[in-house]
């Protein structure tokens, strides 16, 4: 059974796949400066994985995307997010300990009003964005892979 799609779709996928990945990682990394964040960027990256799966089929990506590995990474992201919430437990749960502290991601004080933004600011926000982004992208990708493989097996039976 030919599980992939036509050569037009595969060529366009090869062109668009990298751009979608780069845009998704940009949205995750700049979540505290530009619109978006961990959830949105993770969904963009997962949609790139889904595009790859739809265009090349489950057989085409077999051995490259491992659902077990993706699930492990998702749990690592969830635990990292929970641990980052516990960092400021001395004051309150989810207290932003690093903001304006002067250390890493404690950055200079951002002036009020429109400004170009400081990347190394925001305290825990970038770290939480990366944890949640890892969790969302791997979680949705694992769901898509497992469901596609399951649907293909239903078809052949």
């Amino acid at each position, binding site marked *: 059974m030919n599980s992939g799609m036509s050569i037009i779709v595969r060529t366009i996928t090869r062109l668009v796949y990298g751009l979608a990945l780069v845009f998704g990682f940009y949205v995750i990394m700049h979540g505290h400066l530009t619109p978006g964040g961990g959830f949105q960027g993770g969904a963009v990256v997962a949609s790139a994985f889904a595009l790859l799966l739809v265009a090349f089929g489950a057989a085409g990506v077999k051995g490259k995307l491992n659902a077990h590995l993706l699930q492990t990474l998702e749990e690592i992201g969830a635990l990292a997010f929970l641990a980052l*919430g516990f960092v400021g437990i001395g004051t309150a749960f989810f207290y932003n300990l690093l903001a304006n502290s002067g250390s890493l991601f404690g950055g200079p004080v951002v002036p009020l009003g429109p400004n170009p933004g400081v990347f190394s*600011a925001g305290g825990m*926000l970038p770290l939480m964005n990366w944890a949640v982004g890892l969790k969302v992208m791997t979680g949705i990708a694992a769901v898509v892979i497992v*469901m596609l493989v399951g649907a293909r097996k239903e078809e052949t039976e």
Partner: protein
Amino acid sequence: MRKAVILVAFLFVGAFLLLSATSMRPFGEPTRADMDDYFIVNTQTEVAANNAVTAVVFDYRGFDTLGEATVLFAAVVGVLALFRKLREDET
């Protein structure tokens, strides 16, 4: 008969929406804006992030985001458990 019921319901809901639209508050003037003003004024100095939405989601309302992440985790675990039988034959 069924089409008449659907039409009556459609007209009823439409008239209700139109009536409520005429008595809506003017745009940009909510009843209470205390929290909005607090976030707009203090987010950049307190959290040092330009994106106020991310500051609210991950800092001021971080516990709510933990619940959202738990919902996604439960959905992923549920789907993987549902398709486990099919995956065992695959590998």
